[in-house]
């Protein structure tokens, strides 16, 4: 066992040329990589001294085989130094802040002394202040044009991208050699004042004299199917560097003209710059033969596909599975259906005890190919037995005794984490209880779709199996679905009834629903109800039960609740219990007396609903049980009764269309009147708007009124209790607007909140007259979906619809980036046990969480105490 050690701190610095030489196992001297026989050339970039690449070989340097050889650096002595592109900013600042002759910081010695002492004091407690002091000193020195130490006159220094420094004085262009000598002259004390640590990062080392050549393990060559060896981008780049370096050396040795030497020097600078970073502004990126840019050092680290975001922050993990999801209303909301195939691949390690040894022996005996089995057995000495290749499972099973660990298949009751991307809030990962099922998809209860934002049009989800008892316990105690019914985003349940659950609840609880004994038995059987059947509400001529009676069986005996139902509106509005329309929900002492179940009582994302109070007052376990049972009941009822949607639900007689046409005709006249007023300059101007804007607003107002009227006409001819209306009114699906658009009139189409006006010169489409700003020419759709759109209307509808698509695309990318930045900055902010909110090092953010210390999850709509509800709960009805 290697002793474990803790990393206390990490210090970053620049490798000095001496250090690079010391690290180097071999000098790289030749651009040749392989000889005629295909063997790596000594002194080339694939020199075997840089580490083993083939298994069973021993390393020339460390003597280890592949698994243990860490790889070794080589080094390349440059004929002339070049600038490290990553440090140009620092080089530029130092050149301006120090003297061109003596290299000292252009500030009097006594002042430097003072700053140094101040800096020493600041460093530990105020690191940011220390940094800005250094910055201040640097800026101050840059403004000095005569050296306070030697009196030398200073000149302005210009930086030209990417790596050129020019003195606007006698020196002109500064060579890297000159810069290196200059930076070397800066006294250590002066470097420290400017915030540099000369011990670990002397700025002179920012000029590369020796180039470290990374081990082959960092840049492995790959063997293509064709048998040709393809080298890594870095290897290619290194060869370029060596070749250029050789040519430069040669040119210097033979005494070539200065221009040629300088050209080669610049070329070397280019190669080394792109070797380090191939995306420097102003430097043409080095390309492969195919024309795609090379992925060099900086590109390996940077960005989404870089080492940090792809391999360190986001590693791939074991014990996880991903597949398509589909719905299963017979599961509990706490459960997830896992395919057998997946269950046989995912395992849970179980330590053998005298109490579970028999069970575990059965798993081992079944082996990896028979469910429920086991894939591995780990002996107390740490040896792993792979049961796939074990011929004698019986012997393994018999050998089991306390101290062994069995990695058994996933079974019913195991706890797993379930996740759907994008993981935008904490309910995006919740713990579910496994239920192994046939089929190839993950199954989940429909009520948990809202927190995951999942639907079943091909969505896939991920599943993770916690491996340690601690992790399993934590998942069960903290992450279980039932503990996330109430959302911390707003005080209210995020998990609840949707779509058919709401329609079903409404139909069952409706006044018009009477159930025979057979039906009641069927319904109660579907939820495994074991109590007594209540007295029937109707005794003669035939016994009959109300749906409300059945629902009462699920409610706690002391539960009181009163609230307007969602359907309470218009002619059917009810505001108290003395109301005929049955749209005021009243529960007294657990008896569902009045009103109907709809979105306002059991809907997801509905705060202060019946569901909300059931969960708040009777706990999440009860809440889960209530939802499991009530939703199964509603679904069973909707299955029994039958529920659909037909064309008849939105079809109105011809008479209605005549009326709608009349409405449109009147609207048209009004628009024309407004147009005339506008032309005569008599149109009333809306405050804060131009005349044209006022006209637009006026037209929009007239047309929107026309659509509303058309909708009302259609509604007048439709049965207010047909399927579509049931869905719209109860909040199960769709809205009044949807019905209007289907049955009566689509109305104005818009792009960016304005009537559609762009396209051709002064008109939207070529066959409109220029300057026509009447309704049809600007995207008003007179027809309904049932009637059908004209080609022109269809075009405008598509234009409006396209905007929606573009909007979503833009919004998701923008909010995704915002989310990333927010998470990165807030990720270690924590509510401590003393109620304060603190950052990672204990810095105070808030003195009390939210100033009142209240968890929004346990509130209704953010209010810590809802006096009204407390009174209602205890006194019951008759209040408010």
């Amino acid at each position, binding site marked *: 066992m290697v002793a474990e050690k803790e990393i206390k701190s990490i210090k970053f610095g620049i490798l000095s040329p001496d250090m690079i030489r010391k690290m180097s196992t071999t000098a790289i001297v030749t651009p040749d990589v392989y000889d005629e026989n295909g063997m790596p050339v000594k002194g080339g970039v694939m020199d075997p001294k840089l580490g083993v690449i083939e298994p069973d070989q021993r390393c020339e340097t460390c003597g280890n085989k592949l698994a243990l050889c860490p790889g070794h650096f080589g080094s390349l002595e440059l004929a002339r130094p070049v600038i490290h592109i990553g440090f140009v900013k620092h080089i530029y600042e130092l050149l301006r802040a120090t003297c061109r002759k003596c290299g000292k910081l252009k500030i009097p010695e006594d002042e430097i002394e003072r700053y140094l002492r101040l800096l020493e004091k600041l460093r530990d407690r105020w690191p940011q202040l220390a940094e800005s002091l250094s910055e201040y000193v640097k800026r101050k020195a840059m403004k000095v044009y005569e050296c306070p130490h030697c009196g030398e006159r200073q000149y302005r220094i210009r930086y030209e991208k990417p790596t050129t420094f020019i003195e606007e004085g006698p020196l002109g262009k500064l060579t890297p050699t000159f810069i290196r000598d200059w930076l070397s002259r800066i006294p250590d004390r002066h470097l420290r004042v400017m915030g540099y640590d000369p011990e670990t990062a002397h700025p002179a080392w920012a000029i590369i004299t020796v180039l470290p050549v990374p081990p082959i393990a960092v840049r492995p060559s790959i063997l293509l199917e064709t048998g040709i060896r393809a080298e890594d981008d870095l290897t290619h780049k290194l060869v370029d560097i060596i070749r250029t370096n050789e040519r430069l050396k040669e040119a210097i040795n033979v005494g070539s003209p200065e221009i040629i030497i300088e050209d080669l020097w610049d070329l070397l600078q280019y190669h080394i710059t792109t070797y380090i970073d191939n995306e420097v502004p102003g430097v043409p990126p080095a390309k492969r033969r195919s024309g795609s840019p090379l992925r060099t050092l900086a590109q390996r680290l940077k960005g989404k596909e870089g080492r940090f975001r792809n391999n360190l922050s986001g590693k791939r993990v074991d014990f996880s599975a991903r597949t398509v999801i589909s719905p299963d209303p017979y599961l509990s909301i706490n459960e997830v259906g896992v395919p057998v195939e997946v269950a046989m691949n995912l395992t849970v390690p179980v330590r053998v005890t005298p109490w579970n040894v028999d069970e575990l022996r059965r798993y081992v005996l079944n082996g990896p190919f028979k469910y429920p089995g086991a894939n591995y057995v780990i002996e107390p000495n740490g040896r792993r037995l792979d049961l796939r290749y074990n011929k004698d499972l019986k012997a393994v099973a018999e050998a089991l005794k306390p101290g062994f660990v069995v990695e058994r298949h996933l079974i019913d009751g195991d706890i797993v984490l379930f996740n759907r991307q994008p993981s935008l809030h904490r309910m995006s990962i919740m713990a579910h209880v496994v239920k192994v099922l046939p089929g190839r998809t993950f199954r989940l209860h429909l009520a948990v779709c809202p927190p995951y934002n999942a639907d079943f049009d091909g969505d896939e989800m991920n599943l993770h199996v916690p491996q340690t008892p601690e992790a399993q316990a934590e998942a069960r105690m903290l992450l279980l679905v039932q503990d996330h019914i109430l959302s911390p985003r707003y005080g209210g349940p995020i998990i609840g009834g949707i779509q058919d659950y709401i329609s079903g609840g409404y139909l069952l609880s409706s006044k018009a629903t009477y159930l025979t004994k057979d039906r009641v038995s069927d319904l109660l059987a579907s939820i495994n109800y074991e109590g007594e059947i209540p007295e029937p509400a109707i005794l003669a001529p035939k016994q009959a039960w109300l749906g409300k009676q059945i629902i009462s069986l699920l409610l706690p005996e002391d539960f009181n609740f009163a609230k307007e139902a969602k359907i309470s509106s218009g002619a059917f509005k009810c505001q108290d219990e003395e109301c005929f329309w049955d749209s005021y929900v009243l529960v007294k002492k657990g008896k569902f007396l009045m009103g109907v179940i709809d979105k306002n009582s059991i809907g997801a994302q509905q705060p202060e609903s019946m569901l909300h109070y059931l969960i708040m007052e009777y706990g999440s376990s009860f809440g889960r049980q209530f939802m499991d049972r009530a939703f199964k009941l509603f679904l069973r009822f909707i299955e029994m009764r039958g529920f659909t949607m037909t064309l008849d639900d939105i079809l109105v007689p011809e008479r209605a269309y005549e009326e709608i046409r009349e409405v449109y005709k009147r609207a048209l006249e009004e628009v024309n009147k407004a147009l005339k007023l506008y032309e005569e300059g008599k149109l009333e101007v809306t405050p804060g708007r131009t005349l044209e804007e006022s006209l637009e607003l006026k037209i929009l107002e007239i047309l929107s009124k026309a659509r509303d009227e058309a909708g009302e006409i259609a509604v007048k001819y439709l049965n207010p209790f047909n399927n579509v209306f049931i869905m719209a009114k109860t909040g199960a699906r769709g809205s009044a607007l949807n019905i209007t658009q289907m049955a009566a009139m689509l109305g104005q189409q818009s792009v960016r909140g304005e009537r559609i006006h762009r396209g051709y010169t002064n008109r939207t489409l070529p066959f409109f007259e220029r300057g026509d700003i009447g309704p049809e020419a600007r995207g008003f759709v007179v027809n309904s979906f049932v009637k059908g759109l004209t080609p022109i209307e269809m075009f405008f509808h598509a234009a409006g619809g396209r905007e929606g698509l573009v909007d979503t695309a833009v919004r998701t990318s923008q909010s995704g980036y915002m989310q990333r930045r927010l998470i990165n900055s807030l990720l270690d902010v924590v509510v401590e046990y003393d109620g304060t909110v603190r950052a990672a*090092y*204990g810095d*105070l953010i808030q*003195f009390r969480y939210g*100033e*009142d*210390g*209240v968890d929004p999850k346990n509130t209704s709509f953010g209010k810590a105490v809802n006096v009204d509800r407390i009174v209602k709960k205890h006194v019951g009805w008759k209040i408010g």
Partner: protein
Amino acid sequence: MSEKLKFKILEHELVPEHEVLKPEEAIEVLRSLGVRPEQLPYIRASDPVARAIGAKPGDIVKITRKSPTAGKIVVYRFVIAG
């Protein structure tokens, strides 16, 4: 304190109550929160209110202000130079 101010900001409706803590009070606040002064939120000595109550760098200022959630809340700030 400046007579040049055109009006008394401390009396303004939107300016919460600020108070410079005595050293022993400051120590007690830091002790009870378990923080070093620089771990508190900052207020600049040049902040108009800090100037009006004469807070100097190194002081700790107690601010009592209205809160939409809690009604009233007390927070502390560490006075920094600038």
